[in-house]
């Protein structure tokens, strides 16, 4: 799953670029809701709300389930946030390591420079 993170992040940022969709996420953070209820709350047509939910669903931020004639929406798993945190943590660890490595090789480079000057002198 994780290898799709980059594409999913793009999809997520696109999904989050809309105020209504952020509102829907916030709402679903409180409780699951049907598309009809969301459409009423955000004063828009069912078709309009279906589109927004579709975008959120494709980004993995929301999942939906149809029971009878009612489609219920809920927040998607927290995977995305977890994946991003995992990678960033890994990166930071190596970044700190490489910064320390920079200092060591800079010192080696200086030593070589002064050794070379001594050799010539």
């Amino acid at each position, binding site marked *: 799953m994780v290898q799709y993170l980059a594409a999913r992040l793009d999809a997520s940022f696109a999904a989050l670029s809309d105020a209504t969709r952020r509102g829907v996420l916030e709402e679903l953070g409180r409780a699951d809701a049907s598309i009809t209820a969301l459409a009423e709350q955000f004063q828009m047509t069912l078709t309009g709300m279906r589109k927004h939910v579709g975008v959120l669903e494709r980004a993995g931020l929301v999942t939906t389930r149809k029971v009878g004639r009612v489609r219920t929406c809920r927040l998607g798993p927290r995977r995305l946030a977890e994946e991003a945190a995992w990678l960033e*943590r*890994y990166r930071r660890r190596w970044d700190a390591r490489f910064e320390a490595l920079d200092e060591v090789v800079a010192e080696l480079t200086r030593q070589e420079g002064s050794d070379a000057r001594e050799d010539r002198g």
Partner: protein
Amino acid sequence: MRARIEGEPGSVANRTTVERTSDCEVVVTRTVDAPARLVFEAFTRAELLRRWWVPRSMGMTLLSCEVDARVGGRYRLVFDHGGAEPAAFFGTYVEVEPYARLAWTNEEGGEGGPVTTVTFEEQGGRTLVVVRERHPSKEALDAAGTGAAEAMVETFEQLDELLAVELVDGHR
């Protein structure tokens, strides 16, 4: 499509990138401003390796560092991580190609542990370092990235807070 995270764009310093190339493998890349020969030495000489492998920010202290960077040679790093017992990391070098390539096993978790491969590519006096960590399973790699469980929770909390603020701001 691959997971990839880069350092600050536009920063002058060389950037460390991390890419999860498969369920079992993670690849770290970084350019170092020095010839491959020197970078390779920093990886393979114990007195140099011990100066950078565990930077202070990791919250661990290196107690000892033994390195025998020959094929079949072993390494052993012992850390004080604040726990009751020090932690040891050890394994065997399986590939050693001077100034170009290194590979070692990580055996502290038993047999069949991850294998780390590092390549050094010199380009105009600078060296592109590519570190590949190949783990036996997705679960093993997932666990490897986390470090201390508390730190992971903290990261999630920070991220949750950030996302919460974003959502609230966006809705206003």
